[in-house]
């Protein structure tokens, strides 16, 4: 138990150093943290980077797994223009984007 706690503390320390370094070098945060980045064009198109997997997809709802939770996109006529292992482009009439914490 003690070893696991030490390891956790070491990781947190490393992460803290990495964050400070990234802030000093002005590196984009999503690159350092591995967080998803969502770019929205009006209410018609969404470009999502760093998603992990598709959890649910209908024409009214798209739920994606991202780091730290799920990203829920709701609207109507939602279609996935293309996707690869990291990026996805979604088109449709977007009503809401919601981040569901785990």
């Amino acid at each position, binding site marked *: 138990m003690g070893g696991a706690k030490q390891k956790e503390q070491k990781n947190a320390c490393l992460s803290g150093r990495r964050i400070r370094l990234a802030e000093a070098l002005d590196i984009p945060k999503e690159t350092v943290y591995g967080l998803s980045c969502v770019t929205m064009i009006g209410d018609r198109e969404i470009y999502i980077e760093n998603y992990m*997997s*598709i*959890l649910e997809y*209908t*024409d009214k709802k798209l739920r994606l797994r991202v780091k730290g939770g799920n990203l829920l996109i709701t609207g109507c006529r939602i279609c*996935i*223009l*293309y*996707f690869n292992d990291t990026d996805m482009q979604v088109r449709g009439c977007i009503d809401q984007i919601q981040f569901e914490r785990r």
Partner: protein
Amino acid sequence: MESNVQRKICGYVRIQITGSGQERFFNLCSYRQIFPSNVIYRDGTCICEILLKDYWNIKSLVKKTGIKVRLLDKCGLPFFVYRYKKRGALVAGLFLAVVFLYVMSLHIWSIDFQGNTYYSDEVLMSFLESIGIKNGMKSSRILCDDVESAMRIAFDEITWVSVEIDGTLLRVNLKENLNTQTIPEKSTETRDLVSDYDGVVLSIITRTGTPKVKAGDVVTKGQVLVSGVIELHDDAQMVTGNRVVYADADIYVQTEYEMDMRIAQSYEVDQVVHENKGLYISILGRDQTFLLPVSFDYPVRKETDITQLKLFENFYLPVFVGSVDIQYYDTVTCFYEEEEFLNHCQEILNEELANLEKKGVEIMENHVIIQSDDLCAYLRGTLTLKVQAGVSAPVTMPEVAPDQSQ
């Protein structure tokens, strides 16, 4: 993501996916580097497009996820070729067209000059031909830097030149030194200024030399107005020597100009007897004109309007198409009406006077009258002009008196 063109060339299929494991199927596809596109959800099923090469690799994923895949449509070049395999000529024709366009795109089919006003397109074109640059040559053989330096060396007035290949167009942009006025070098030659008119001197302003006439003097053609010899005097006003210079002065002379001009009352007009239109086509330098078979024994006037075909903005083809307009005409002699003829004579007289004024001549008095008879008219009379006189001539040295020489 593959571009649309790439997808069309590789071929893709549109499939319908039914079942509960659709999301898992897409995640597994992503994991295996298979990326469906245009995924649309419709009535519990997903419709998506997938590349043909990937379609053969999703069978195991379909089995694993328990979905059902139905093929809806086949699109792209492989399916097109397969569909039209019995129409070999059509496919071969399309293929040949693509090859033809590719081969055409490797050559230069048009040369465009921009920014030239002093040197005409023909002059620049003939120079380019002399260094081996011409229409139809391979664009890879053109070394733009070498052409630029050759042009700069050959044409003194070109201050900047840029040669670039844009599609099948060779574009030559250049700038010329239009400020060609140079300061004339001061002449070291010694000359007199002699009169080129008969008349009366109105005014004389001498800059260099010795004036030989004054305002009011009557001069004849060839008479020395300003001598290039300047006498040097000592304190006792005795001539001690001569200095020879280039005589220069502004001298205005009043002179008479006799006008005697005959104007015919008839004039000739070309009347078009027949007009024949045709088509002009030139492919790879071989030209052909298509005309209706008409023959007349009249002189012919031919006008051709040619346009070079191009596929895109800078993709010119070695094909020229145009219209040919051939006019057979007959020359007819017409006569002016009396009043019209007088107006015509007056116009000619005004034109002559305007031409004289353009030359810097001032018309002081005009005694020209129009005399007409049955067939022609005459512009006769005298014009009194104020003209600038004086042309350079070799210096006439003064004769040395025998007693002075001793």
